[in-house]
Each structure stands twice: as C-alpha cells, then as structure tokens.
C-alpha cells in the first residue's frame, strides 16, 4: 500500500501522524483517500475549486508528479508520496517592519568587539547581532 508522508505543518490535521498508508492505484486516488480519512487536510491541499494548491508539491518517490502523469500517475506497493509545501522567499524593496521586541538582550556578555560574534551560551536573546 502506498504511504503518504505528511509535512510537519499539516500533521495536526492527520491525527498527528507523520505518514499515512492509503490505498490507491494512482496519486489522485491516494490523495482522495487521504482527505477522506482526514477531511481537515483538504482546504490546506486544495483550492475551493478542487485544484491542488500551487505551492503544494507532490512527489512519488523522488519524482515530481507534475513531470509524470500528474494525479493519474500510477502507484505500486511500497511507493512513497511526499507532500512538500514550497520553501521560497527573499528580500524585496519596502521591507515590512515586524512588530515585537527589537532590542537585543544579552546576558553576561562584554560588548567590546563582539558585533560579529555570538553571545556566549547559554543565552536567550531576541536577536543575534
């Protein structure tokens, strides 16, 4: 039976399981089985019109299903389906100011010439400077 790997942000919707065994002859069937077992996953994986969200990557073993037969990709016993939300970003003009504590709190550390070094551990701080 194929196994679906659940990424950490979605495990609260899969009964805290990191992987789920789901029957299915294709990727589409397996994903449908997954959301049938765990309905709360559906809105995180699919848009309102039933399409897989653009930032949700689905891999069959090490292959992106988009470059196989997409949701019609055939599965066999022992296959692993990985759900991988994309990881991307970057700086851009007009950085939004984040709220919260910006001041540095250093515990027992000398300030002389330390701007490129880290506080001596253990130290709990709001920011590393």
């Amino acid at each position, binding site marked *: 039976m194929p196994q679906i*790997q659940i*990424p*950490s*942000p979605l495990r609260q919707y899969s009964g805290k399981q*990191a992987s789920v065994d789901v029957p299915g002859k294709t990727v589409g069937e397996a994903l449908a089985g997954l959301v049938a077992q765990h309905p709360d996953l559906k*809105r*995180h994986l699919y848009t309102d019109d039933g399409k897989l969200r653009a*930032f949700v*990557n689905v*891999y069959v073993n*090490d292959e*992106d299903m988009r470059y196989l037969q997409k949701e019609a990709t055939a599965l066999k016993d022992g296959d692993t389906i*990985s759900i*991988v*939300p*994309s*990881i*991307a*970003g*970057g*700086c*851009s003009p*007009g*950085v*939004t*100011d*984040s*709220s*919260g*504590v910006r001041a540095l709190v250093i515990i027992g550390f000398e300030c002389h010439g330390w*701007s*490129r070094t*880290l*506080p001596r*551990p*253990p*130290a*709990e*701080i*709001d*920011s*590393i*400077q």
Partner: protein
Amino acid sequence: MLKIPQSACISLRRHGEETYPHECCGVLLGQFGDDGDGSVTKTVSSVAPCGNTRADSPHNRYNIDPRELIRIQREGRERGEDIVGFYHSHPDHPARWSPTDLAEAHWFGCSYVITSVEKGAAAITNSFELTGTDESDKKFVDEKIAIEA
C-alpha cells in the same frame, strides 16, 4: 522559541557570507517540544545548507528544490529529526521578513530564520514563527532565540 546550538548559528550565518551577494538558504532539523502552555519550542539539532534554485534572481530571491528537501527530510527521519524551520539571508538588507517571505511561507509552526549580510559579513540574525490557521490569516511572529553551547 527557537533553541539552537552555537555551532548551528555560526554555520547558517557563515553560509550567508559564503553566498554573498546572493541569498543563501537551508533547513533546520530537530524536534518540536510542547511547553505545556500552548507554545512550542523548536530545538535545532542540525542544519542542512541547500542550493538556491532562483538562478534568475539570487540576490533577492531564494527557493529550495523540493527534491533536496525530500532527501533532507528522509535523512533527518533516519536520525529521528524533523524539519523545524528554514533559514535564508538578506544581502545588504534588514534581517526582517519581507512581503515576499510571507507570501511564500507555508510551513506553519516552523521557524524562519533570516540573517542580514552586510557587505559580505553576517550582521543580524532574527527568527520568526509562521502562525495562523491557513493562507488567509498567516503571519510571522517574532521569536526568541536561545543559543546553547
């Protein structure tokens, strides 16, 4: 809160210096810990540097290849580690999340660590947790960093 060994801090900051003037990126592996008061502490045990696939705009954009992430996740699982966050650098830009960072963030509950690299030298490192229930209410919240020996 994000707990991270000093060696891991040095590693991710150095990565940003090595890739300057381009953005670096990588994965933080470790464990999620329930603090008992509704909050979660992420304890980092290892750092996995990644390649930046945004060859078209590496100075202000990053992207981690999902195949690389799957490999890192599998290897981490074998060691009993989970993905608890990610890091990247902002060359000559503040160590604060940008609108792009938020728009592209989807790993709720994970830490996003950002280091400003000024003229090739790592300056400020901040950590932000992605909170919310879904794409409509997600936001970054400032997060304390506990450096451990």
